[in-house]
């Protein structure tokens, strides 16, 4: 018998829709914390909000990548079993990539950037993180005047990396920061306009 497997959604339709709605709100309102706490069984190999996100967004046609800190345990089995999604061979093949900002290195250029014909074929990063009280000033669609991105920990060169990501627009990656309190979106259309 295989190892004990954590449960998926008890109410697949309602729970995945609720998760999807929060994700949509997060990407539509960059930098704003969209409060969300999944009702998923807490016995999941990923933090519950990240697990819910995987279950809601993955299906058998979507590929995912796990950063080193997440690839050792049963995360891959969990996502594969419940969604039918395949593990991507490289970061470049991943539609969704999970990483933990506290443990994994973040290098935006490593991931799929999309193609001029299909800019949507880029990787969406699911970054496990915590919320910080202060943050960088951001601007762009979905932000009235100037907003704040309060996330920790971010690598020292994040502003440089994000500027490079922004320079390739409409190509580039989008990031969803997942915290215990909810989701914070950083789509490729957002610019960082000021430091902490």
């Amino acid at each position, binding site marked *: 018998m*295989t190892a004990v497997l954590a449960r998926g959604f008890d109410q697949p339709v309602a729970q995945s829709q609720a998760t999807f709605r929060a994700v949509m709100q997060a990407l539509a309102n960059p930098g704003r914390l969209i409060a969300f706490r999944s009702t998923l069984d807490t016995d999941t190999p990923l933090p519950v909000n990240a697990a819910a996100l995987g279950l809601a967004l993955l*299906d*058998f*046609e979507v590929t995912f990548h796990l950063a080193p800190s997440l690839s050792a345990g049963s995360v891959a089995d969990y996502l*594969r*079993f419940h969604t*039918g999604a395949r593990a991507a061979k490289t970061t470049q093949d991943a539609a969704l990539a999970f990483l933990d900002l506290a443990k994994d290195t973040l290098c935006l250029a490593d991931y799929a950037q999309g193609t001029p014909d299909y800019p949507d074929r880029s990787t969406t990063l699911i970054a496990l993180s915590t919320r910080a009280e202060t943050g960088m000033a951001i601007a762009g669609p979905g932000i009235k005047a100037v907003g704040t991105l309060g996330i920790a920990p971010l690598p020292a060169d994040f502003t440089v990396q994000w500027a490079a990501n922004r320079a390739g627009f409409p190509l580039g990656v989008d990031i969803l920061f997942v915290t215990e309190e909810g989701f914070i979106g950083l789509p490729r259309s957002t610019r960082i306009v000021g430091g902490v």
Partner: protein
Amino acid sequence: MYVAVKGGERAIANAHRLLADKRRGDREVPELAVEQIDEQLALAVDRVMSEGSLYDRKLAALAIKQARGDLIEAIFLIRAYRTTLPRFGFSEPLDTAEMAVRRRISATYKDLPGGQVLGPTFDYTHRLLDFALMATSNTEAPATAPHEPDVAMPRVTDIIASDDLIERNPPGVPGAEVADLTREPLSFPADRDLRLQNLARGDEGFLLALGYSTQRGYGRNHPFVGEIRLGEVEVELMVEELGFAVPLGDMTLTECQMVNQFSGSATEPARFTRGYGLSFGHCERRAMSMALVDRALRAEEFGEERKGPAQDEEFVLSHSDNVQATGFVEHLKLPHYVDFQAELALLREMRLEFTSKQNPETLEAAE
């Protein structure tokens, strides 16, 4: 150009209520049950499943009831419904050689291993209206005859192929991408997998007319029905965690193998060529038409001159889908008030110009 027009809400609500009333019809007549449609209008169900591209008899029967028997409307309902469901995966390729055959005929060989069985067919009926069906019929149970268990019924084309007298089918490559027009929009040139998917869900009337046109000379290719078979085939879905394909049940399919005129070259001996048709349910006319059109669309592959509409892949594949077709034709009912006003103004201007050229003095006099 469309302009949003408001104000019809009550008219629409009442029109829908009226539609529901007309669908029910005379309350003195018993209401049609979905099971009755499934059982007694089974071939309409088969057509709706094929063109709706969704194998589910009960849903197709419900769609027929809801659409008051308008099959294209029913197909539209099925196509809309399927978009609400997640996709679990792809089945293992269905093996028609392993079919539990209920009908199998060949126009190329009289005696063939496994024999010819007619099954339930309209062929050989006299097409005389049976007024006995006006009343509740008292139908006899079907005749039975002793049967040998597991009698082998090889495909007729496999028999021809064993003498190397017919082209080989393009071999399957494990793990190869299979085109899917429900995921990627149609693009040209289209490979045969994409063409067959398109034809499999194409409008039966359209396929029939195109198939017929090839017989009348618009892309002739001398077809013979190598075999038509109808029966049940097992559906299997690979489950990665288990490491084997799990049977999901049986489904009914109709397959048509069309054997067509030769192709050969300086390096290849002459061989018969193939056209292939496969359909959900019992849809013989559709499977035959599909096979004719499949072969016609291979004109370029065989270096044949393309002179008929059935050989023009862009024409065929872009117009085969009756849901798309009805959408575009029926959209003409939408308000085009502004468009039409513009046309009207232009027409008036042209007429004024015309009049002024005919009678320059009238205009001058008016000025």
